[in-house]
């Protein structure tokens, strides 16, 4: 992800500002209580926990955040957003991170393949929303 950071001669703080703009969230409002991580149903699978994502960004370390699987494992269920005592909508931050990567060309649209039995009964809403999440 260093390439993304240097691609447009952007400094990490410019990218951080972009994350804040795209998400409409103030990352510095977070005081690290960890309720987002405690409630996240996907936290078990994330290489960087949700509250750590914010902390890293507060410290200006965007590179590990952009390389992390966390934004892609977020199911946008909004549990974190509804529980944050500081009103940080973390689901929007995750969406902003995904958008940043997609728009810079670092997250090409993938073709997802499911076993025929599962694909036959898959609700269309799942296909539509998965595509939305992976194409901005």
């Amino acid at each position, binding site marked *: 992800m260093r390439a993304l950071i240097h691609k447009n001669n952007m400094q990490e703080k410019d990218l951080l500002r972009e994350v804040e*703009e795209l*998400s409409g969230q103030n990352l510095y409002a977070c005081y690290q209580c960890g309720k987002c991580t405690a409630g996240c149903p*996907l936290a078990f699978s994330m290489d960087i926990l949700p509250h750590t994502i914010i902390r890293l960004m507060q410290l200006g370390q965007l590179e590990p955040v952009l390389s992390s699987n966390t934004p892609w494992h977020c*199911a946008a269920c909004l549990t974190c957003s*509804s529980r944050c005592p500081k009103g940080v909508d973390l689901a929007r931050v995750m*969406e902003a991170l995904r958008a940043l990567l997609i728009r810079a060309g670092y997250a090409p649209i*993938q073709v997802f393949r499911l076993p025929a039995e599962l694909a036959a009964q898959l*609700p269309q*809403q799942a296909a*539509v929303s998965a595509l939305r999440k992976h194409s901005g």
Partner: protein
Amino acid sequence: MKLLYYPGCTLRTVAQTFDLSAKAVAAALDIELVELTDFTCCGGLFPQTTDNLMSLLAPARVLVHAQRTDPAQRLMTLCTFCYNTLKRTHYTLAQDAQKRAIVSEYLEEPYRAEVRVVHLLEVLRDDIGYEAISQKIAANGAVQALQGARVAPYYGCLLLRPSDEIGMDDPEQPTILEDLLHTLGCTVVDFPWKTECCGSFLSVSKPELARQCSQTIVQRATQLGAEMLVTTCPLCSYNIAYMGPNHTAMTVAYFTQLLGLALGLDQDQLGLRTDALHQQMTSQWKGGAI
């Protein structure tokens, strides 16, 4: 009572039982559902980046279409994703005049931000009332199909959140589904995982993760002695049925199907005998009524 009805894509395809049973239930409760003609996709998910106006166009088109069809009527949805996306889009466009102007210009029709998006659960609670449903059940020959059935209510994620925009019920301790199930005579299991996410669309992009989420939900419901999970969303139903342990030992039903049974409607009308997915989902229920 007349209501505009927006089924969305999934209710026309793999979740026809939800569509069928909702129509049957509505008819039994004297609700006239007028389907939005030539409806288009709601977009699936609400776009959460602040500058993504393009993704607002699909849901905005549906709202404008509803406004044109019958401005006096509320727009009723069933699918959780449609409900969430349309309601949040309406909220965003109502709050932000600039976005509303841009979207209206693109759609070549001004959105007046007056469409009220509602869910059938809200209509049952606020317009019909549980008391009236109770009386209807008693009047329809006292069908005891659900008496004592141990059911766990399952809301999933997008039906309730974000609560300031959706406002159906408390996002942490909702009771709207429990209240309905009590009315139907069910034994409602106190289910702490009722608002836990099933893994949602990750069943497409990361199936192994959706599997773990769904397994937890099914296992907890089983441990609490539930015989059935009652859902409001085709994707929750799918994930629980197909992503749960061993294609699940848990029966899954839509709330409309249980309501229909309690109202004494025919099983065919509720899609309980016709749909393959549904047969698989409901075949294990020990109660035997389904």
